[in-house]
Every structure is written in structure tokens, then in C-alpha cells.
């Protein structure tokens, strides 16, 4: 019987090996097309195709256009509009792109034979650091050095304000880590749990073949199979929800720097 190795599904292997490239200042970079890169390209291609199909701009929308409009209105209305307000409009493309890319990468990992790109910490960390740097740049551009007011609680005596400000600063700096870990942990957790229950289906079924009292194993196998189906449904919700949460947290972080002196 094959060994049960839940982490093997996250292994990266090269599909198209390319020669490593020397970049001055960065060292040697391996730009081979791995399965992770391939599935990222597929996700990006799917999104591009989706928008090509959806961009008919008819007055009475077809199915694709209706779906695209629903997603767009959801991000515009309940994320940038509700969280940041009117000043959030310029950030709508960024947030919408993040949301769509993460959602498609999560969902493609659930397809049979799919590779879950968002279960790689490198991918989620890149997205999180990009968001973090965007927040810092927007903060300095909009507020100048007033950006540091973000850490200064108003209406508090100064010894306490220094103390609170320190913790505000720490919680600000830890944000990219929490963003990356949340998406990574959710994806890897869901896939490992599904793998474990799927291995129970096979393992208990084989055990049930011994006959006698061991045929109770078939019962456990059936229960595990029902569990896999239920987990699959849950994972579809989680895949969508985590993309939504990532976009929503991006909005909350942007809101703090965009509406710094207005208290939205």
C-alpha cells in the first residue's frame, strides 16, 4: 500500500527547465517553468479569457457579462465603496485584480489534477508584501510625514500614547505576515484534511475486505467518502471567501492611510 504523504501534493517540480540567469545584485535566478508557474499562467489566462468573453457590453447582459458585472459590483459596492468610501475608487482595479487572481488560483487548486498555487508561502507572501508596500507608498504620497500619525492615538496622555503607539507600529509591521499566513494556512489546511479523509476511504475499504468484524471498515469508508464530498463543498466556499477576505483586508489597510485625517 502506498504511503500516506499529505504534503507531496504541494511539491514543486520543473516542467520546462530553463537555464539559470545571472542578475547583478540578486545572484542566480532559476526561471524554469514549474508546475506552480504553469498553474499561475493558466489562472491569469483564464481571467483574461473570461474578460474577453464578458466584454461584449450589451444592454441586456449575457451570462458571462452578468457574472462579470456581479463580481465587479460586489467589489465596488461592498469592498472599496463600503470600506474606503468615494476616495477608494482609484484603488478599485488593484483590489479587484487581487480578488479575482486569488479566487481563480484557489479554485483551480480544487480542480482534479490541479495544483494549489496559493498553498505556496512564496506566492501568498509576494501578494501580501505587494499590498503592504502599496499601503506604505499611498500613505506617504497622500499624507507626507503625517503618515506617522497613524501610530499616534489622539486624545491620550503622552506616556500612554508612546506605549500604545509602539504596539500600533508592531501590529502594522506584522500585517504582511498575517495576510500571507492566513491564505497559505487556509489553503494548505483544507487540502491536507481532504487528503487525509480520502486516504481513509481507501485504507478502511481495504481493511474491510478482510471479512468478519473487519467489514465494519466499509461503514467507515462510506462515512469518510461523505466527509470528502462535504469538505469539497466547504473548500469551494473557503476558496471564494479567502479571496474576499484578502481583498477586504487590503481595503481596510488602504482606508487607514487614505482617510487618515478624516475619520471615515
Amino acid at each position, binding site marked *: 500500500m502506498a504511503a500516506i504523504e499529505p504534503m507531496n501534493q504541494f511539491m514543486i517540480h520543473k516542467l520546462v527547465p530553463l537555464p539559470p540567469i545571472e542578475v547583478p545584485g540578486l545572484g542566480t535566478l532559476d526561471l524554469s517553468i514549474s508546475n506552480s508557474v504553469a498553474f499561475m499562467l493558466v489562472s491569469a489566462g483564464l481571467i483574461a479569457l473570461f474578460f474577453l468573453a464578458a466584454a461584449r457590453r450589451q444592454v441586456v447582459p449575457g451570462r458571462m457579462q452578468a457574472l462579470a458585472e456581479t463580481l465587479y459590483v460586489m467589489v465596488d459596492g461592498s469592498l472599496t465603496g*463600503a470600506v474606503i468610501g468615494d476616495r477608494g475608487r482609484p484603488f478599485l482595479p488593484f483590489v479587484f485584480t487581487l480578488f479575482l487572481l486569488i479566487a481563480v488560483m484557489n479554485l483551480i487548486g480544487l480542480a482534479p489534477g490541479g495544483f494549489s498555487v496559493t498553498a505556496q508561502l512564496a506566492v501568498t507572501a509576494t501578494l501580501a508584501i505587494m499590498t503592504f508596500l502599496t499601503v506604505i507608498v499611498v500613505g506617504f504620497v497622500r499624507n507626507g510625514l503625517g503618515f506617522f500619525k497613524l501610530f499616534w492615538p489622539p486624545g491620550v496622555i503622552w506616556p500612554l500614547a508612546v506605549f500604545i503607539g509602539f504596539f500600533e507600529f508592531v501590529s502594522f509591521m506584522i500585517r504582511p505576515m498575517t495576510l500571507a499566513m492566513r491564505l*497559505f*494556512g487556509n489553503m*494548505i489546511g483544507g487540502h491536507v484534511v481532504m487528503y487525509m479523509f480520502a486516504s481513509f476511504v481507501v485504507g478502511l475499504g481495504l481493511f474491510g475486505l478482510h471479512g468478519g468484524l473487519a467489514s465494519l471498515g466499509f461503514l467507515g469508508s462510506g462515512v469518510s467518502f461523505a466527509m470528502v464530498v462535504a469538505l469539497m463543498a466547504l473548500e469551494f466556499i473557503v476558496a471564494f471567501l479567502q479571496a*474576499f*477576505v484578502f481583498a*477586504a*483586508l487590503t481595503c481596510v489597510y488602504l482606508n487607514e492611510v487614505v482617510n487618515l485625517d478624516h475619520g471615515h
Partner: protein
Amino acid sequence: MDVTAAKYIGAGLAMTGLIGAGAGLGILFGGYLQAAIRNPAAAAGERVWLFLGMALAESMGIFGFVMGFIILFVKV
């Protein structure tokens, strides 16, 4: 004690972080449902904050989970 045994025990102990995440999520959704049933008209507008709170409460559990994985799979 054997290092491998200690690793497994540590990974199991790291999972206790999920107790807090579970309790927090229960309180969160319970509170949201109570409020939503009392005032259904206002429920839709607060759903973003519900999911945000869910993400924040859940992230603590996820940290415990990731710690468990680091203990198990990272070679030192």
C-alpha cells in the same frame, strides 16, 4: 525523550490554539445572528465586517496550525 516523539507532541500541542479560534468564531457568528434576527434590515450591510472578524479570529488558529506544520516538517 526521543526527538521525533517530542516533535509529534509539540505539533499536537500547537493545535490547542484552535480552541481559541473555535470559541471566537462561535461568539462571532452567534453575535451576528442575534443582531441579524433582531434587525434583518441592517444585516446585509454588516456582512463585510462579519467576514473580516472571521478572518482575524481565524488567523490566530491558522498560526497555531502553521506552527504545528513548521515543527513537523521543517528540518533543523
